[in-house]
């Protein structure tokens, strides 16, 4: 199996966002995370590329992403004041989309900063 080595990978587990991690990975999982702290190691080694969860759930039942996206849009559009919350463990690109969505919905957008 070929080993993929990523130099200067970025850890997003905590606010320090260390950007000098050396990752060794095969197709499915990260085997080593050099220079990461205990928390960072656990973060990198715990997430794999396996299919461990259903792609989507609607009311607890398995569904396709297409169905889930459509239903999510319906629920959010039907609401008077929907809340978009969290935003900490996602990329800036995803955050940008989320703010745009909240604006269109006429809702609220908020992050962990408010805690």
């Amino acid at each position, binding site marked *: 199996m070929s080993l993929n080595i990523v130099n200067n990978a*970025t850890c997003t587990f905590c*606010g320090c*966002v260390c950007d000098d991690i050396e990752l060794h990975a095969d197709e499915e999982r990260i085997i080593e995370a050099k220079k990461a702290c205990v928390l960072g190691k656990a973060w990198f080694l715990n997430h794999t590329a396996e299919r461990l969860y259903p792609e989507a*759930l609607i009311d607890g039942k398995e569904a396709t992403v297409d169905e889930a996206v459509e239903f999510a849009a319906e629920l959010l559009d*039907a609401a008077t004041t929907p809340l978009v919350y969290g935003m900490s463990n996602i*990329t800036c690109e995803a955050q940008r989309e989320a*703010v745009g969505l909240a604006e269109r919905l006429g*809702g609220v957008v908020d992050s962990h*900063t408010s805690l």
Partner: protein
Amino acid sequence: MVLVDIRETKSVKASDIFLQIRPGKDFEVITILRALVKEQPVDESQVQETGLTLEQLQDFVDRMKKAKFGVFFFGMGLSMTRGKHMNSAALLTLAAELNAFTKFVAMPMRGHGNVTGADVIMRWQTGYPFAIQFGRGYPRYNPGEFSTVDLLVRGDVDAALILGADPGATMPQPAIDHLARIPTICLDPKVTHTSRLSRVHITTAATGISAPGTGYRMDEVPLPLRPALKSPYPTDEQVVRRIHEAVLKKPDWLQQGNRMALNQV
């Protein structure tokens, strides 16, 4: 390093001076410091209430003024205890006022990965860092009114989209109860506590591990993410964009509202 806390923590060993203040007196301490910085007289009885002496506080002020570059690092002990946002605001004001003497900044300590990015992105798009309400068609900012825990506990929102967070595991129970009552949609690499009380869960790629993009470090330095794995799941960015596109196909509530208002005239 000067450490201010209500109890002796492990960080005391790393600090040069430890100031132990009474619980819930953060605002009072900061306000007295602000007065001392401006060489205003302070009331002895008010100093006593804080658990510190006037000498300790004056010494602290002298050190801050003498520093070439000072930083306040503050955490939830300040922003989540009595006074809440007002404590944070007071500290930011103190940092601003110290700039009449030297360079001083205040920086929140961050627990979660890219929460700094959330601040930066929201500031860029709306002018405000968090707790933003678009209900009038333009952004309004008011922590305490539009911050999540307050909104949920009061029951002021009627749907929720949760991204990169697990409030179902961490928030106060009344907030969790409201999330379970309203239709909640949750995007996460794992099926979480929040997913279980949600009507919709969509599994997404893990940020920085199998999802590429940008993340901000606590001191607002943007860093590229270099994912080592390929996920079988879509990224948060892709899913949010698709939800946004699906919503855009529906009639725009704001234009409808405007039309109704015009018809009434």
